[in-house]
């Protein structure tokens, strides 16, 4: 059997792929965080809980209404987005004039409520969700067996990330968004409805989290705590990447997922802490983050 650094190549590539899958979730979530932070100056702690909500919606759709994976993949982000719009309209909106910390604390409270509610109904043990028929099984690539669903997660995430990047960097809508990030007052003076834009941006950002949640449902156990465990790592990813650049968030997310996967192969004990260690090192040498600008 072929080996890499004394490790069977099959195991090595398997972990690499698993790392890429995790990295895809990091990328989508940190992208959403960055977009929201750019315009609202709010660090959305609830991002993890809304990702969890996306996964639960997928499960509920199937169990209660017989809606399959594909239907929920389209529907859940919309529902999560609408929910986000309500949060923004009725709560977050009142905090913009205050210290940014209050936004973090508010969304932290929302996280606790969402987690507590779902926990009181479904417990903590986790719900299973089967892989959609079309993506069952695996493809033999010759050098490795590629599970179809995992490949789909990576491809779908990268496509969504690239579309988001394209919209923000290359279209007129994105130009408005970037202008709003730079100078919202000026933009409003030009007749753009900035408050509406802010609301929609928050909705879009959390819809991304809901989308990631549905993607995650078949690969991870659906449990109320799946979001907060992830969001803390995503925070570290955001500190490492810096929130200045969309592409930076995508690349950092995927890269750290891969590094985490590889750590699992070589030194499994450190796999849960490696992202935090990298964060510490980056802070020592480049406090603004890899892609960040010093303000």
């Amino acid at each position, binding site marked *: 059997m072929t080996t890499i650094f004394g490790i069977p190549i099959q195991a090595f590539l398997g972990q690499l792929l698993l790392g890429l899958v995790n990295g895809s979730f990091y990328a989508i979530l940190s992208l959403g965080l960055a977009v929201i*932070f750019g315009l609202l100056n709010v*660090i959305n702690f609830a991002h993890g809980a809304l990702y969890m909500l996306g996964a639960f919606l997928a499960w509920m759709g199937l169990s209660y209404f017989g809606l399959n994976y594909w239907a929920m993949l389209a529907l859940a982000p919309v529902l999560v987005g609408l929910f986000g719009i309500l949060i923004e309209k009725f*709560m977050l909106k*009142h*905090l913009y004039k*205050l210290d*940014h*910390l*209050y936004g*973090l*604390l*508010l969304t*932290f*409270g*929302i*996280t*606790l*409520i*969402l*987690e*507590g*509610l779902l*926990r*009181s*109904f479904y417990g903590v043990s986790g719900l299973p969700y089967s892989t959609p028929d079309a993506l069952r099984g695996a493809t033999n690539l010759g050098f490795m067996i590629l599970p179809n669903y995992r490949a789909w997660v990576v491809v779908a995430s990268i496509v969504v990330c690239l579309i988001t990047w394209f919209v923000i960097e290359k279209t007129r809508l994105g130009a408005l968004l970037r202008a709003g990030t730079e100078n919202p007052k000026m933009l409003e003076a030009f007749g753009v409805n900035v408050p509406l834009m802010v609301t929609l941006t928050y909705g879009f950002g959390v819809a991304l989290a809901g989308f990631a949640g549905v993607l995650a449902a078949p690969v991870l156990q659906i449990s109320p705590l799946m979001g*907060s465990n992830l969001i*803390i*790592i995503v*925070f*570290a990813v*955001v*500190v490492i990447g810096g929130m200045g650049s969309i592409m930076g968030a995508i690349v950092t997310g995927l890269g750290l997922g891969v590094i985490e996967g590889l750590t699992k192969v070589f030194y499994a*004990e450190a796999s*849960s*802490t490696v*992202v*935090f*260690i990298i*964060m*510490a090192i980056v*802070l*020592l040498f480049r*406090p603004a983050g890899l892609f960040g600008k010093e303000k």
Partner: protein
Amino acid sequence: MKRQALGYLIFLVLLALVPVAGIYPIFVMKVMCYALFACAFNLLLGYTGLLSFGHAAFLGTAAYSAGHAIKIWGFSPELGILFAVVVAGLLGLIIGSLAIRRSGIYFAMITLAMSQMVFFFFLQAKFTGGEDGLQGVPRGVLFGLIDLKNDINLYYVVMTIFALAYFLIWRTVNSPFGQVLKALRENEARTTSLGYDVDRFKLMAFVLSAMLAGLAGATKTLVFVSATLSDATWQMSGLVVLMTLVGGMGTLVGPVIGAFIVVLLENKVGDFGTAMAGWTGIEWFTRLGESVTIVIGLIFVICVLAFRKGLVGELNAWLDRRRNA
């Protein structure tokens, strides 16, 4: 000033009467441990303007350090506590010097991430007993004189620790050092321009806060004769933010009151849920006890939206208005 001192004296006398009055001393000791933890945290958030979202790391680290030193190495309780405080201070030095490289929201994220790393370390390390925690830590004999196995003796020791630490925080806040911290909170750039080494002051405040949080953690180990993983979770970090917020950040008494409310709530929400279930007939309420987080979360949201000054802060504002009217 005199009235304030008198108030503290009355409070201390009442506190000293707790075991005599027949109130369950373990509960009050728990409140005092969390109150000290919240006061330590408030030194950072309320007086320096730094939101550390990872203070559980210091509480947990000190709890495990004290437990390990006393149970395995046979330290006396006073040495165990001292050791734990030093360890928490060292951890504070490491995390603090990383976190102060960024400010504002990033500071919160970095401290949260670092404390999660500490959590994973404790989860995997052999000496912590993993999910079970460190059980059966002997309380021992303080200074070779006071037998802490007796709850009443322990109560007065915890009370003394709490009072001394509170006094230390009061002194710190009202010292020239405390004035610099407040200046830093109000306007960092101006403080720098006045010639203060801002980073050094931030780091000193961070380490001091970590050590005091550690003192709370070590004391907690003695009270509960155990150290558990829950002390080091992000939920605990959130809880201390809530205690400070409910009571009033930037006030000395606020965190104490906040800690009392939150601990009371944690203990009583289950009873309330059972009562509600009996009253409304909705079975779901019986599970409220397991899901205290819903209630905690709701209070968080309400506090942030409508009640940002906290109980003591609102009271002070009301007194000010009345005086000026």
